[in-house]
Structure formats: C-alpha cells, structure tokens
C-alpha cells in the first residue's frame, strides 16, 4: 500500500495576535503521513492549525502544505478539520446536519447515504441520526464531525485532540480508521495522548512557546528532547515530553 504523504513548509513564518507573537518558525520542511503536533498549552498548536486552515493570516512569511505531487493544498478543497469538542448544531438532528454538510460540500444532501455510508457505519453514526446535537456526548459529537471530515475526502485531515476523553475501545477504533485511511490522506493531529501518538505518528512536531522545539520521527524527537539526559534516545515519547516540560519549568 502506498501511503499518502504531505510536506509541511514554513519560511520566515510569523503569526501574531495583534502585538503578541503566537507562532514563529524561521524554516521548516517536514514530510509525513501522520503528523503529531505536541506541546504544552499555549505552545502554538491551535495557532498552527488555524494558520494552516487559512483562518489566521501570517504577519510575515509563508506556511503551506504540499502533497507528494507538489500540489499546494487549499483548506476549503483539500483539508478537513475536527475541533476538540466536536461540532454539531445543538438544535438540529445529526441527519439534518449531515444533509446540510453534504449539501454544502457536495451539492448533494443524500451524499452521506451513498459515498459517505462507510464512514457513517464505521464511526457508528447510524444510531445517532435521529438525535439532536444537544443529546450527544462529546465523543459522539466528535464522531459525527470526524465522519463529516472524511466525507469531504480531504487530503489532509486536521484533528484537535481527537483521543481526549475516548475510552479504550473508541480510541482503538479511531486509530484503526486513521491507519486504514493513511493510504488516501495525511493527518495532522494535535494531541496530549503521547501513547497513541507514539504508535500512530511518523512525524512529530514539538512546539514550545510558539516555535519549533523539535521535529522528526518519534525516536529522533525523543533523542532531541532528552538530549543530555541519561540514555535519552531509549526513552518513550511520553517520558521525553515529560522531561521536556520539566526542563521548561526549570
């Protein structure tokens, strides 16, 4: 199976909230299928996602994602985003939301019944169709939004904390889906679940105070973050991040 890869490229990137610099990356070229974006709160993970989605305009420099053919991915055409809390209208049914989304993205409100049926089934949405958004749990809302994201057939799927609050079964299900989908699309996942990221990600990007602290494969990042510590390269990502956060506090 040929995996789909994207390259994340930033040149002299500076993203600011008025005067506050939220993200500053002088140069970054990173290739990956499943990119884990890690960092403490306020490190710049959400800013990076918003900048990738074109919701934040860089103050200077550029940020873009290319596919393996060199095509620059455009947010509305090639990307999907699933926020941390899931996104479903509280007062309309899941089915109406799916229809609305399919009408917007595919000009066909019944798209979810045909092409999108796999995702509806795989993410166990079928039994939720009649429920309104307000009746769904956080995990269910996220499943709906995840299904919608897949239905857009994106080349890059951006996930914000997708595993947060999921039980073991749901975590494994989602990991399985991501693993299966990596042939067709790349993923950029912002998460605190180091154990999951360690198993999934082939590229890890660690942000620290708005800049890149480390980037590379899991072993590379582990070595990088624990550099100078006892046998750093043999540590797990969880331990490496713990050391990283500890060093920040010190």
């Amino acid at each position, binding site marked *: 199976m040929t995996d789909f890869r994207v390259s994340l490229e930033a040149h002299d990137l500076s993203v600011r*909230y*008025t005067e506050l610099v939220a993200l500053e990356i002088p140069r970054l070229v990173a290739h990956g299928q499943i990119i884990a974006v890690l960092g403490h709160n306020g490190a710049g993970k959400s800013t990076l996602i*918003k900048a990738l*989605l*074109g*919701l*934040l*305009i860089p103050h200077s420099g550029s940020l873009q994602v290319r596919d393996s053919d060199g095509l620059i991915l*455009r*947010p*509305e055409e090639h*990307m*999907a*985003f*699933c*926020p941390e*809390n*899931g*996104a*479903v*209208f*509280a*007062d*309309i049914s899941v089915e*109406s939301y799916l229809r*609305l*989304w399919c*009408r*917007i*993205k595919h*000009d066909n409100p019944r798209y979810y019944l045909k092409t999108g049926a796999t995702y509806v089934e795989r993410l166990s949405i079928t039994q939720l169709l009649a429920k309104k*958004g307000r009746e769904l749990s956080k995990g269910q*809302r996220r499943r709906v*939004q995840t299904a*919608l*994201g897949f239905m*857009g057939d994106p080349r890059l799927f*951006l996930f914000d904390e997708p595993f947060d609050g999921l039980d073991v079964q749901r975590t494994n299900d989602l990991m399985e889906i991501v693993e299966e989908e990596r042939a067709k699309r790349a993923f950029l996942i912002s998460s605190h679940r180091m154990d999951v990221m360690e198993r999934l990600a082939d590229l890890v990007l660690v942000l620290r105070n708005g800049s890149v602290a480390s980037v590379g494969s899991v072993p590379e990042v582990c070595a990088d973050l624990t550099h100078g510590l006892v046998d750093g390269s043999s540590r797990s990502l969880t331990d490496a991040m713990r050391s990283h956060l500890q060093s920040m506090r010190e």
Partner: protein
Amino acid sequence: MRKSLHLALSLIRIPHLAISLFLFPLLISLVLVFVQLVATGLLVKASSLETATSHIATKRQADLSTIRRILYGSANLRSTVKICRWIDDVEGERPPDSECAPDRLDVAINVSDPSSFDPSKYVELFNGQVDRLHVCRTCQPDVVIAVDSSGVARSEIYSMYGMLVLSLPYTKSDLRDQKIQLMRNISDVKKSFGELHLHLPDVDGGIGVSQLQGSVPFTLNIGLLVLIGLWLALRAHRRVLDYFSHNNVLLPLVAACGKGPFYTALWMLTLLRVGCFLGASIPMVFFGLKDIAGPKVFETLEMPLWQLVVWLLVLITAFGLATVIASIAELKHRHSVLSFAYKVMPILIALFGAAMWGGSFILPTNSMATLRLWLSAVPVVGMTPIFLAPIIKLPLIPLLIHGACSVILLKWALTHNARWFAAHLEEV
C-alpha cells in the same frame, strides 16, 4: 459567488437561523415601522389645524356614538338622566324608588351626605349619556366618583365598560364645538402670519417652517428605516456568528467553505434580511405617509432627488460607522464590566455633538453658524445634523465631507480589526 450563494441558501435551511434571522426580526421591524407610522400620524394630526377641525366636524355623531352603541346597543342619546338620591332606613342605604334600581352602567357619586349634595355639575356632564346618576354613600356601579367634603373628586372604575361610560362626556357636542372653535381661532392666527421662514446664517433662503409638516415625518421615517435596516444588518452578522460559535461549528465550517465564500455568504444573508425588511417596510411607509400626511408629503422637501440620494448614502455610512464602532468595541471588550459603555459610546458622542449643535442656535452669530457646519462634517459627532439635513437644509459640502470621512473610518475600522476577528473567531 455561486459557491457563496449556494452556502447562504443552505444555511437558511437551518430552522433556528431562518426564524431568528428572518421571521422574528422581520415581524419586530414591521411592528416598529407600524408604531413609527402611527406616531407620525398622531404628530401630523396634532399639528394640523385644518385636519383636526375637519376631523372633529365630520366625526360629530357617527364615530363618537359608537361608544353608546357598544354600551346600550343604540347610538342615540339617552333620555334625560335621572337623579337618584339614596335614602337611609333601618335596613341601611337604599334607592328612593324602583326606577332607581342600580345598573352597572349607571354612575354613582359617593358623598358623605347625599341629601345635601348638589349634583348639577355631574348632571350636565352625564345628561343624555347615562340613564341614572346615583347620589349615595356606598352604592357601587361600574363608575363611582367619590367626592370628599372639600369637593375633591376621585373616580373608581370597576370594568372596561366603566371606562367607556366615563369617556361619554367627552363626546358631548357642545364640548366638540368649543374644540372646533378653538382650532379655528388658532388657524386664524396662523393664517394672519402666512408662511413662516426661519433665517439662519448657514441656511440659504431660510427654513420653510410651514413646510415642516411634510418634511419632518418624511425625514424621521426614512432615517428610522435606515437605522432599523442597519440594526438588522449588524445583528444578522452577530446572530449567524453567535449561532455557529455556540454550536462550535464556526471553525470547521469556515475551514470547509473557505473564509471568502463564508463571509460572502454571511453578507448575502445580511443583505437578504435587510432586503426583506425594506421590501416590506418601504411600501408600508410610502403609502402610510401618503395617507397620513397627504399626497403632497413628498413635494414638501425642498431638495432635488439627487441630493436626497446623497443624503441617504451619507446617512447610511454615518449610521453604519456608528453601529460598527459600537459593535466592534462591545465585541472586543465584552469580558469587561464596562462593555455596555463601549456599546453606547457612539450614541453618547453623537448626543454630545447634538447638544453642541443645538446649543449653537442660542447665539445667532456667523461664528456659531460656522461651528454648526464644522460639527456637521465630523463623523459620529455630527450625526444629528446629518439626520436632520432635509429639514435644516444642510449645505452639500459638510454632508459630503461627513460621508467621505465616514467611509474612510469605516474601512479603517473593518480592516484594522479583521486580523483580530480572525484570531478570535471561535471566541466571538
């Protein structure tokens, strides 16, 4: 553009948005326009002597007797009112005879000593209007007028019919005749002065005060329409953003549709909303004004059509600037305790400008006239003179300067804050 239109039409399908964005505000706005028209009608009727006299004269019996028709089933005057002085016996207070048996539609005058009370004043008022006038200590039909020993009266009304009974004396023909005479006298005084022209240093040819009867309602109604339209536009933006934001779908939706198409769709919804409102209200105001102030209402404006259009455009940008400033300020400082102060800041500035502008009329000098022109040209500060431009015949130059400055400031406010909005999209 097609994508945005498609998105806008898709979003309207969300029932909550359709109701809150179109139906509810449209109804509210139309009610506001209706109230505005009624208020205008009352204003015009009250200020028009000719209308008032003819109104009173033509409605002599027909309309006013409607109350009697409701109360008694007949529009005719009642027979002479019967005075029933109640008497005391061993069982307590009772009517003097069987013809004085109390009815709900009678009127009672509660006094401490019924035998000595002189009811002639009340007989004169209620003669032909009610059947019986009871003079008693405690009897209680729907209308009771309690008169104390010093002659001070207080009326207690126990039903809506009682309210109608009490309104009957106002319909008496001699009272109406006096009213008509008064109106005619005032009209005579007015005729002896002819048309009034108020001359101010900054107004060429003076202001035709006699023409204000037409231009004031026109200006007020158009100005209020613009205000309601802007309010609807502003609320449309916030409502859609708030709705998406509360449901946490703003970011995924904007990301999925693209920022440009999403905001264009938002503008389309806004325009659609304002369009619906204007489509419903403009004919209502047009025909309403024509009916209320007469068909010549649109001829009383001493302003060519192109100048009227310029005024409208300037009015829209001036009010638009004020509402955008208020909205942005409130949004950016919504977590502050004083957020409401930011919201009303443009109104306070405009009121300050209005006070200065109005105060300048106290001194009829050229320097004050110049000050007025300067004030009129300053955005937000000069909103009052801009609003009243057709009435006060504001010269074109300050009008244009005000409009140009408002457009520049509007553009600056929007572009300057665009980055902030983008950064705080999910917090909106």
